[in-house]
């Protein structure tokens, strides 16, 4: 008979390889909090509120693999990505119009959402006392209705940061000089690897907002949380036309976004950018103006931070959806 402790281990709701809480170098939030403690700043609680704002907004981003450049034998150094630069254009489309287009597209062909995603992302990696750089990484997930699935994480080539490295075929394969960081297969069932947004998204924008709020409790009232929830949801699901329309509707109504203009993203795709600025942070969402698909999300700082040698406008994280 199986040991009862073994059975309990198998039911761990947050296993050590859970995406969000897995062992890795400190993320931006963890590093900032450590610095605050050590510096002994009297105004810790005030500062923490600001950091929490950043942390909440960045919570959906998966931290890129930190590659410390330590000597001449190391890989070539990688610069932090340059922020996307939207510009006003005669071709600009409003968010409301994009949502309308998306709803029209969904009415013509509802389609279905697919479990799994293919993204490239990057986020600031900070290691106290070290010059750490990170390269973007690409993640391909595939999930079945019974909870089984697979995960492939590949770090992009430092010589060509951001160049896609996964061919989403069957089976998926790496291309160019990406370094496979993780390759996992998951058995049927729900566990820490797939529990968030496990159920299929519901019909209707209002129902979708409630669904998103299950894993981001304030997503139904806080625009920043809503953006974080959308980002997390899109890491689990590749939405079909109907869900794309519902997401575009939610973003147009509840996300506090303002138009920023046309932009060409890091994958060379043209999109329509919208931004939301809060204390210290700007969140950008890039949508396909034709069908409302989310192409990119990016976070940039809005003020200098000498402690981390950050300047206003520097990228804190980005995610580009490739499928």
């Amino acid at each position, binding site marked *: 008979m199986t040991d009862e402790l073994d059975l309990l281990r198998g*039911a761990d709701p947050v296993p*050590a390889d859970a995406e969000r*809480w897995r062992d890795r170098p400190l993320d931006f939030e963890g590093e900032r909090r450590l610095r605050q403690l050590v510096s002994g700043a009297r105004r810790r609680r005030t500062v923490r509120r600001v950091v929490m704002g950043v942390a*909440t907004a960045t919570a959906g981003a998966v931290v890129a693999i930190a590659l410390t450049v330590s000597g001449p034998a190391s890989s070539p150094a990688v610069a932090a990505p340059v922020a996307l630069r939207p510009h006003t254009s005669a071709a600009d489309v409003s968010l409301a119009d994009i949502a309308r287009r998306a709803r029209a597209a969904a009415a013509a062909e509802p389609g279905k959402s697919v479990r799994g995603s293919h993204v490239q992302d990057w986020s600031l990696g900070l290691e106290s006392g070290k010059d750490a750089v990170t390269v973007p990484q690409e993640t391909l997930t595939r999930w079945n209705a019974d909870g089984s699935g697979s995960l492939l994480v590949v770090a992009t080539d430092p010589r060509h940061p951001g160049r896609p490295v996964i061919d989403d075929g069957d089976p998926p394969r790496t291309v160019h000089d990406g370094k496979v960081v993780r390759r996992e297969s998951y058995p*049927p069932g729900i566990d820490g690897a797939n529990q*968030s947004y496990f159920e299929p998204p519901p019909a209707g924008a209002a129902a979708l907002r409630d669904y998103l709020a299950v894993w*981001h*409790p304030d997503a139904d009232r806080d625009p920043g949380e809503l953006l974080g929830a959308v980002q997390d949801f899109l890491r689990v699901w590749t939405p079909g036309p109907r869900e794309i329309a519902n997401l575009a509707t939610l973003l147009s109504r509840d996300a506090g976004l303002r138009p920023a203009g046309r932009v060409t993203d890091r994958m060379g795709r043209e999109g329509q950018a919208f931004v939301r600025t809060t204390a210290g942070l700007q969140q950008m969402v890039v949508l396909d103006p034709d069908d409302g698909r989310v192409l990119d999300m990016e976070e940039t700082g809005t003020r200098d931070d000498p402690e981390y040698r950050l300047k206003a406008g520097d990228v804190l994280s980005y995610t580009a959806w490739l499928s």
Partner: protein
Amino acid sequence: MSPDEAFDTAYREHYWAVSRFVARRLDGRSGEVEEVVAEVFAIAWRRRRELPESPLPWLYGVARNCLANAVRGRGRYRRLLAKLGHHEVTGGRRTVPSPDAERPGSWVLEALDRLTEADQEVLKLTAWEELTVEELATVLGCGRSAAAMRLHRARQRLRTQIDTVRGAVPVPARTSTKDERK
């Protein structure tokens, strides 16, 4: 190594383990998890001269108190206590029965849920945080033999509840489990 350096090392080595500890007991609600973890390390910083050589069990002990204080402080103690060890989302369980009937996730948690909070915690610390009996004693603030006995009894009670749940026999009320301790 100075206390400041020891704290820095402990923070970097155990930040995610402490996060998982808290997430397991707060349904993984990210906002609350991050707040509690921040408080754990704030307390650990203030008490950094007490950091033992192997600080993780000690940090878990701090985290247990922070969880209780944080929850109680927000006036939601009872509501969240009811959730500890559960994984429920808007009326439905996050851990649901698998199509594979042999997968233990749901019924093991159901069996665990029938134990007292104290028994649950001993078992979680052993199975999920993978603590040794000595480390368990550190977290629980008791001696090694007392920790070993608590674990032994909790395992027996879990086995009983597993057999009950798997056997689909009438499930005794939770109070009957507590009665076994008397």
